[in-house]
């Protein structure tokens, strides 16, 4: 049992990060506001978790300006998609062995 738990990705060891990745798997490109609304979070909370995912290389961030307003959009990187799929697989394995 114990070794299976260790196959779970540490970067996804939080429900906000899982949520962010889930949204980015289902949608190609998502703005900060959309992400915030989809997960029902505050700015600060979301920003810190997205930063962690960005640092891990799982989320690609791009900043543009729409007129004078900054608009930040997020997308899952290829690496991030792969890691998330692996995480889901590990969860499923855990589920099957656990019951």
């Amino acid at each position, binding site marked *: 049992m114990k070794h299976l*738990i260790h196959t779970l990705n540490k970067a996804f060891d939080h429900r906000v990060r899982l*949520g962010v990745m*889930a949204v980015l798997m*289902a949608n190609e490109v998502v703005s900060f506001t959309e992400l915030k609304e*989809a*997960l029902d979070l505050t700015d600060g909370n979301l920003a810190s978790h997205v930063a962690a995912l960005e640092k891990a290389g799982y989320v690609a961030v791009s900043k543009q300006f729409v007129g004078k307003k900054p608009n930040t959009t997020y997308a899952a990187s290829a690496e991030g998609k792969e890691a998330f799929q692996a995480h*889901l697989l590990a969860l499923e394995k855990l*589920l099957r062995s656990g019951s």
Partner: protein
Amino acid sequence: MMKPTVDPLAQLTEIRTIMERSSRFISLSGLSGVGAGLVALAGAGIGHWYLRGEYGPGGFLHLLESTASERLRLLPFLVLLAGGMVVAALVVACFFTIRRARAAGQQLWGALAQRLALSLAIPLVAGGVFCLALYWQGATSLVVPGLLVFYGLALLNASKYTLDEIRWLGLTQIVLGLVTIALPGAGLLMFALGFGLGHIGYGLLMYSRYER
């Protein structure tokens, strides 16, 4: 917050819910479909009644073989009727969907609803213009099939952003449209069947599945 012991089932369920909620506009109400269907039935009825008044019992059949000047004379009535039906159906559909989104707490005019509206509107506007051209050029018997097929394609296109039933409603309209090509005389009836009963049927199905 997550405890150190992982509950994989809860995690998987939550991930699935988030993916679903963030990529689909799920507040679409079945009653919107029922309302739009009733509008379509009323519209088909008005059209039938008007054409009978103009040409006698074979009203719609006469329209299929009408001359260019007759078609021109009927155009304002048909455009007004079609426009009125679109507006009335939209108002009814928005009313029930707004009500449902409020009750469910889903954001109404967010990125999802906009994507849904755009993916519906592009094939729909193209289809509307195309069918107007068919009428104008005298291919009157292809107008109803065209409306059904283009509307079906619009629904099919929009269905990836909303409930799965919309895909089936779209496919139903496409099939009805293609069948109508072979049955031009039944055009008005097929219009009532597709836009009227089709909407009502799928609307009731969606209502009983998600809103009770």
